[in-house]
């Protein structure tokens, strides 16, 4: 049976603005991916644990509250503690350009700011998977 790209879409932190997360979840599904949606108020621990059990290829997180500098790197740290290095981690939301280099250095492979077309995110995922399809 064909291999499917599996993506965990999560909203870490406390902000409740999930329009973007839901739109991207639908767009990824329409691009043929399997999307595990975990909803609001997720801790980094919950996100990492779910990503392991669901064996996803990609973790996609959205934050609009400004807590990205704290929460995104924490997810990377937890993945590293579990020696998981083959999951592509991306983030989106209201994220100032000057924060992006720091997030990338922490291991967030792609950062998508407001106005990014969903097609761009889809292409990025397809071209940057860390595991063979």
């Amino acid at each position, binding site marked *: 049976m064909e291999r499917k790209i599996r993506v965990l879409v999560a909203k870490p932190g*406390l902000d409740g603005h999930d*329009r973007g997360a*839901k*739109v991207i979840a639908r767009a990824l599904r329409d691009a043929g991916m399997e999307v595990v949606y975990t909803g*609001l108020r997720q801790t980094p621990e919950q996100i990492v644990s779910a990503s392991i059990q669901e064996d996803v290829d990609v973790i996609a997180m959205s934050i609009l*509250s400004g*807590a990205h500098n704290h929460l995104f790197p924490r997810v990377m740290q937890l993945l590293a503690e579990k020696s998981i290095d083959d999951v592509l981690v991306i983030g989106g939301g209201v994220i100032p*350009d*000057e924060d992006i280099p720091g997030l990338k250095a922490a291991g967030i492979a792609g950062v998508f700011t*407001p106005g990014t077309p969903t097609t761009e995110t889809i292409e990025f995922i397809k071209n940057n998977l860390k595991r063979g399809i």
Partner: protein
Amino acid sequence: MSDNIGKSFEDYDSGVEKALIRFPERKKTFSTGSKAPVKRLYTPLDDSARDYLRDIGFPGDYPYTRGVQNTMYRGRFWTMRQYAGFSTAEESNKRYKFLLAQGTTGLSVAFDLPTQIGYDSDHALSQGEVGKVGVAIDSLADMEILFDGIPLDKVSTSMTINAPAAVLLAMYIAVAEKMGIGPDKLEGTIQNDILKEYIARGTYIYPPESSMRLITDIFAYCSRSVPNWNTISISGYHIREAGSTASQEVAFTIADGIAYVDAAVKAGLDVDAFGPRLSFFFNSHNDLFEEAAKFRAARRVWAKVMKERFGAKNPKSLSLRFHTQTAGSTLTAQQPDNNIVRVAIQALAAVLGGTQSLHTNSKDEALALPTEASVRIALRTQQVIAYESGATETIDPLAGSYYVESLTDRIQKEAEAYIATIDGMGGAVKAIERGYIQQEIQDAAYAYQMDIESGERVVVGMNKFQIKEGSPTGLLRVDPKVGEQQSAKLRDLRAKRDNVRVEAALKALRNAAEGTDNLMPPILEAVRAYATLGEICDVMRGIFGEYQQKVIL
């Protein structure tokens, strides 16, 4: 007369159709910002079913299509109210004093997410969030600093607080008490609209039933003790931000409003006792005419609901008063200066639609919290409209426009159809539990996004007329140390306060929550004893439980 017009219109139309062969129009179909079809031309023929006195009437008279006051902006302008708050109470207090000095006429407090969800700053889930999207308030001590030096009997204060609204209102009352100002002198608004939190905004705590009880307790308490307080701001803003159409915004907001009135009436309150203190909060989006029409339609729909469904008699219960904020979701991170223009058009729509108060977004809000400089431009935009545009010289200047009246009728009709569907499901609470309202919004949001990506919907500077740009500079940053500072303050507070009094107050609150007594008095007592927001909300969590998000994708 209309026979003549009809004949002439046919001549015009057939002429145009012929000309189109050689000079086609730009597009095959034309539509509003909410994707409703728009005709080439509107004429008196579109007015035939409308009755001026029944459907439009005079300003300050039923059904309030033309506005809720009889002189509108000739009497006084709308309240220019800029939503603000970040970091600590000290920092936000400085921003409020800056805004008052710049000519704002009311305060609007933004709380950080832990405060909005009833967690203290040192709670595990608060990590990284303290002070980020608003000010962190953990106890009365923070609230005293927040309003230090601001005369609470002279300004009106709007607080965007929902699930823990009762606690923050109690803190405001307690701060005023310390200033020697009685609750009857206080003016302002708490958002207190939990239903749209379930639908669109996400800062809920308790399940619907207990949340509705808290809301009706506030209605009852304020109608006795804080008579000039707007006890709820029934909000379509976030519904629209989540991606709804204009008609859905009106429909779902008013359906929520119906649910609140229903709950209060069932709790034994007189509709004309609390009705006058209900207020609304709408979005103002890009389509100038559709938005102006939306506000007119909303007033008409609400007036009918209150009169026909609830038998309200007090004109103040029938008239829909609202705050407006320009649409944050239309701001682009690309070429942020363009946002100034968008905000100006959206603000004009709100004024043409007869808003009672207005927040204009700052150009940099798609990137970060606004700086003082960009907040000033946003405020100046309102002042230019008020003092220079001429839009405020007469009442409801768009009335009688064939197009705008027709838009108003259409939005009313679509909203009423949605409300009937929701009635059929047993009301807004049931429709939310089913996920119906959320699903309708998500479908509209997805369609909107796909239209942008296909280029069918042009967003200037984002999917057309792009330029290469450097990174924006000078954005406002919240000191990441705020979390630690707040935690230290909390440790200090818990050590210094009278913990016996706190325990007793929390126990009294627990007893009230288990029973049916009004929750405001025990909350007020707990606040006075310096119980923290988290402690107070936890007592109620223990009894009411926590809401689980309904997601249907």
